């Protein structure tokens, strides 16, 4: 996919996000108040979102002007972009992201020590570290080191 097409899609994405904020999220999440001289609390969020929308349109239009054939083969190139290689890359990142989320859940449920003991070696193994003895030693050192430093020295209780 050409960068002009990617930028066009990026512009579309940010335009949609900004419109969602302008028409749904800001009215729902930010109250209006009576005040004499000050801006409303929603002024800056609207300013940021309208700026985002305008810039997204500029990004889309400028890339359309640069590449007149942009829309013609856009969908073909999107399909071509979903190659085996790119799906594999997305899969790798998804696995790591799942581990991230799992760590957050386990941190809440079973505490720092157990969560780290599960996730850290799993992540190292998935990333390619295949030495089991050093996997265990490194995990133990990280847990002991971080626990001692944060819990006992900095008084940030991790349990």
């Amino acid at each position, binding site marked *: *996919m050409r*960068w002009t097409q*990617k*930028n066009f899609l*990026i512009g579309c994405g*940010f335009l949609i996000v900004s419109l969602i*904020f302008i028409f749904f*999220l800001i009215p729902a*999440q*930010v*109250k209006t*108040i009576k*005040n*004499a*001289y*000050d*801006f409303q*609390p*929603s002024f*800056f969020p609207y*300013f*940021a*979102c309208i*700026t*985002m929308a305008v*810039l*997204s349109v*500029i*990004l889309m239009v*400028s890339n359309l002007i640069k590449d007149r054939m942009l829309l013609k083969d856009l969908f073909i190139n999107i399909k071509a*972009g979903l190659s085996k290689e790119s799906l*594999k*890359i997305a899969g*790798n*990142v998804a*696995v*790591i992201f799942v581990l*991230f*989320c799992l*760590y*957050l859940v386990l*941190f*809440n449920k079973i505490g*720092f020590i157990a969560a*780290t003991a599960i996730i*850290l070696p799993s*992540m*190292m193994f998935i*990333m*390619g*570290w295949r030495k089991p003895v050093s996997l265990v030693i*490194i995990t133990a050192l*990280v847990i002991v080191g*971080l626990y001692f430093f*944060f819990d006992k020295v*900095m*008084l*940030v*209780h*991790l349990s």
Partner: protein
Amino acid sequence: MVDSFMRLCEGFTTVITLYNLLWIFIGTFVGVVIGAIPGLTGVMAIALLIPVTYTMEAIPAICMLLGIYCGATYGGSITAILINTPGTAASAATAYDGFELAKKGKAGLALKMALYASFVGGILSAIMLVFISPIIAKFALLFGPGEYFFLILMGLVVVAGVSGKNLCKGLIAASVGLLASTVGMDPMAGVSRFSFGSINLLNGLTSITVLIGLTAMSEVMLQAEKIGRPGQKIELPQQVGSQALPLKKFLSFWKTLLKGSLIGTYIGAIPGIGSSVAGFVSYNEAIRSSKHPETYGTGEIDAIAATESANNAVTGAALIPLLTLGIPGDTVTAILVGAFMLQGLTPGPLLFTNYGDTLYAIFAGLLIVNVVMLITGAMAIKAAPLITAAPGTVMFPVIFIMCCVGSYAVEINSFQIGVALFFGVMGYLFKKMQIPTAPFLIAFILGGSLESNLRRTLTLFKGRLWEVFYSPVVLIFCALIIISLIYVIRSRRKTSGTSEEQPDD
């Protein structure tokens, strides 16, 4: 001034004892270590160590705490350069060029420049604290909300300089950053914005957590792409060690160092601004005055000199409003007020009269702190190869765990880990879409202050915003903003012929 010099010399004779120097070393060392760990700040370390000072005398107690302050401000640059994770918000600007230099195998050079520039900034601001603090305090008092607004706007102009080759994408990132800065309580009316019913979001997003997510966690996800792909290796930037920074080469950056130190000193003397703003304003000035502004963000050593001299210059200058007027300049000095009062020293105009000898000994201690920071920083640089020598498949998971714990430590709340993860995903997507993250960070860090000062100005002038332009300080800032924008537009026009992004897939 001669009198101040004589009193400073007497201060040196008082402070240079083995006992005092030991506590200065402990404070600076602890500060550098704490500052280097993402999620931990000098504020935490000072708050934890204040009880240690109960039984100490004033001079070693205050000097130790100042050592933590200066050390932590510098320490954030170590992880900013090595693993693209600023330890503190003050080093956010250092990460842009520092990590790029590390990727080119010049991490040692970047670390040394950060250390020496921090030393220069700290020493210059300490000297100004000693000799001209009453004058600077008078200028600091000229600042109202209108002046604050334009000063912060000047810091925002750097967005145009760090947007890379696609200005539109950079500005989109900045608008996302501005939007993110509005999460939490409205600064004037106190209504909640984008809290989605969660108490955790009422206080807004903390800059450290966002930094950790946007820089470190997104980098881990980026490295994860290489799993199982032949010819791709997960690794940290290598080759910290042997690049020298000869004195002659260092001194060739004297203009940047001087300007950065002056910017940091002036901004530090203004209550409520902070070292991250100083870093960005100095970075912007370095871009503006450079003959090759397009090199900034790609590994320009001058950028590190600018940001580190400015953010460490804030450390001495933040004491100016504290000691002359009794007004703490930032969170750290607000805690230091407590430390001073514990020792029987009430910050304010009478401090110089009633406790002049003790005060000048503390000033001498601050100068020594910056020298000790050189020693502890050099020790940290020697230890840096231990980090980069470790395999990436081990380091990145460890970095992830440290970042999660660091995020948790910010508010002792696991919600912050979720926030860091969210911004980690956002940072990863930004990198894949070639949207620069620097404008987002700048707008996010400065957005809150920008809004609150604009709205205070409106309230103060009863809606007649044009009256703020009656202030000469505001006019000076407006002129500087216009000059900066002209320079940035000109330099973008010069480089606009080159290709935009990476080659097509």
